[in-house]
């Protein structure tokens, strides 16, 4: 519709030969045209064949300038549109920040675009480097949590000092920062409350809670509602005693981040179908971390071969933790002591 209208104006212009008179209209048309894509700029040239050479070059320049203005006003589709003009974004790319995944989250694209690398970003990177974060990880950290640049540097320092006061070692702090980009977003009070929750809930010693937080730093900043549900599932639905739960949690903190529905399904398969006791499950928590279909096909294959014997007191013992280790090839060769063709054939009968 828009292009049709433009073409009509151009036609009238050519027909009546009053292009020089109504220069205002001419300018307006040109401005409107520059708003459209490059293809149409070619049309502009072809429509103005009658203009003298110098004038054409001049108009070309004007269009180029208009083009520059357009960059500033026209809404852009993604951050990539600004990369060629922005030092900050170029620095981010050289750090390995995935701008594409940042812009997909609401408001973050806008925020990143407003950052000034020297002023807003550099001090934070220096701070992270001082805490021992490897420069290779900067890209991943910023991709996950660009809002870090919104926090106050002094507050970040306080948060690190809090960890130090809780006797987290240098390596532990380094690991926490690298593994969990969101940790620094949480105030000292909030982190303290959460560490306290885990310590009280599972009666953990200071050493254990540090081990837990270092092993899976994401657990501490995880959704509290979800954590409460998981704890309920582990304690009440599965019936682990508090002592067992303590070992389970410290060895495999990730179990609490798995959806409760999934983990109860896995547990019921391990406990009811494979016949492992709570004690055995606590000894190899990897079982609960493995997806149910994987457990099912491996256990049924072992059962078919007559090797599903998980009692260490008897002959031909197969360790349950070995069972979920490694890929199918490793499992078939080292645990089932069979070959992959047989395993494939078995899988195709179910």
């Amino acid at each position, binding site marked *: 519709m828009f292009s049709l209208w433009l073409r009509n104006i151009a036609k009238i212009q050519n027909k009546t030969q009053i292009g020089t008179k109504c220069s205002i209209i001419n300018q307006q048309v040109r401005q409107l045209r520059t708003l459209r894509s490059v293809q149409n700029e070619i049309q502009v040239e072809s429509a103005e064949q009658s203009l003298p050479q110098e004038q054409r070059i001049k108009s070309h320049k004007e269009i*180029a300038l208009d*083009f*520059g203005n357009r*960059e500033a006003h026209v809404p852009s589709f*993604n*951050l*990539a*549109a*600004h*990369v*060629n*003009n*922005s*030092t900050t*974004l*170029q*620095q*981010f*790319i050289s750090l*390995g*920040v*995935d*701008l*594409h*995944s940042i812009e997909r989250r609401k408001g973050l694209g806008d925020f990143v675009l407003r950052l000034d690398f020297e002023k807003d970003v550099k001090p934070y990177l220096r701070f992270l480097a001082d805490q021992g974060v490897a420069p290779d990880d900067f890209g991943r950290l910023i991709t996950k949590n660009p809002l870090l640049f919104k926090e106050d540097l002094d507050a970040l320092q306080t948060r690190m000092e809090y960890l130090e006061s809780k006797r987290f070692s240098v390596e532990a702090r380094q690991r926490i920062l690298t593994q969990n980009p969101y940790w620094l977003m949480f105030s000292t009070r909030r982190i303290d409350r959460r560490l306290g929750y885990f310590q009280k809930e599972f009666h953990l010693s200071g050493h254990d809670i540090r081990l837990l937080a270092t092993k899976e730093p994401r657990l501490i900043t995880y959704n509290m509602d979800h954590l409460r549900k998981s704890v309920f599932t582990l304690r009440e639905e599965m019936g682990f005693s508090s002592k067992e739960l303590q070992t389970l949690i410290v060895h495999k903190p990730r179990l609490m981040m798995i959806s409760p529905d999934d983990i109860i399904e896995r547990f019921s398969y391990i406990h009811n179908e494979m016949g492992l006791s709570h004690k055995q499950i606590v000894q190899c928590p990897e079982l609960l971390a493995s997806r149910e*279909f994987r457990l099912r096909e491996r256990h049924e294959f072992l059962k078919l071969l007559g090797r599903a014997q998980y009692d260490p007191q008897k002959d031909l013992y197969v360790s349950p933790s070995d069972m979920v280790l490694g*890929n*199918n090839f490793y499992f078939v060769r080292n645990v089932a002591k069979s070959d992959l063709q047989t395993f*494939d054939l078995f*899988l*195709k*009968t*179910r």
Partner: protein
Amino acid sequence: MALAKVYDAATVFKHLNGIINVYKPAGMKLKHVRNAIIGNIAKGLNEMELREPRKLARDTPLLGTGTAADSVLHNIASNTDLSDHILAAGPRYMPRDVRCATVATLGDHTSGVLLFGINDGLKQSIHIQRNRPIRVYHVTARMGTATENHMPDSRVTVRANHRHVSADRISGLAASLQASHQRKMYEMCGVDLQTQAAYELACKGLIRPADNSQPVLYGIKLIHFERPNFTLELHAINESEQFIAALIHDMAIELRTVAHCSQLRCVRHAHFDVTDSLLRHGWHLPGIVKNLRRQREILEANPQLLEQERIELHAAS
């Protein structure tokens, strides 16, 4: 034909057309299988050698002011268009770039052969679907309990004794069912079974339904019997999971007991066999490409899969 190693993602994507034969695990939704396949294809392509960011046009007027930004000018001088960098523009291949559709659907509880048309293979998949090839199922039924939707994971509604059921009786029932289904087919065509017209119809080959509304059974056979369980082999067109489950239920009632389906497995779809199908641990790009090649060989060996002479496609009424 010599096979060369390819490291270039664009080449692979260009040749990623055809039919693949995937082994669908039971209990996994069709949608999830599809998403896993196209996700893995995109992932595999992105791990290969990708296109470099394109160059800026040499006579592009310098955009923006470019006063305090030395690196900006530097980058423009080096002519790389950073807006086309992978980190800025996103991954080169995304799951939605791969077109993918099933030839015929399988229910959630069914496992077995599932055909996907990929990219240009969509045409082939539509052609195969139009020909309405037969699918072969191995259905395991468990006698003694009936469940609400005749599947193993729903509530048990009835229990019954099954001591009187023997392999012979099941075979007999299966044979009579097969006969009555065949008779029904001819009746739907409007010919009497004892006529010359029926003979000529039978000479032309399999009678297939014209649309995909009416399930048709071509064969039922008992292949395995072991007390609470028995396994039937079904040859059918247009069947659904619910149809087979209901059939098992009705057969059990006929046998004076109750049963539910404990396993539903599609072992063959036209010429695509379960032996060639891709198991879950093979759902990666190399495996998929290899499978595409294998299925292409099958299609070349059996051109009638794609263009078949119309064999009396009758309108199911």
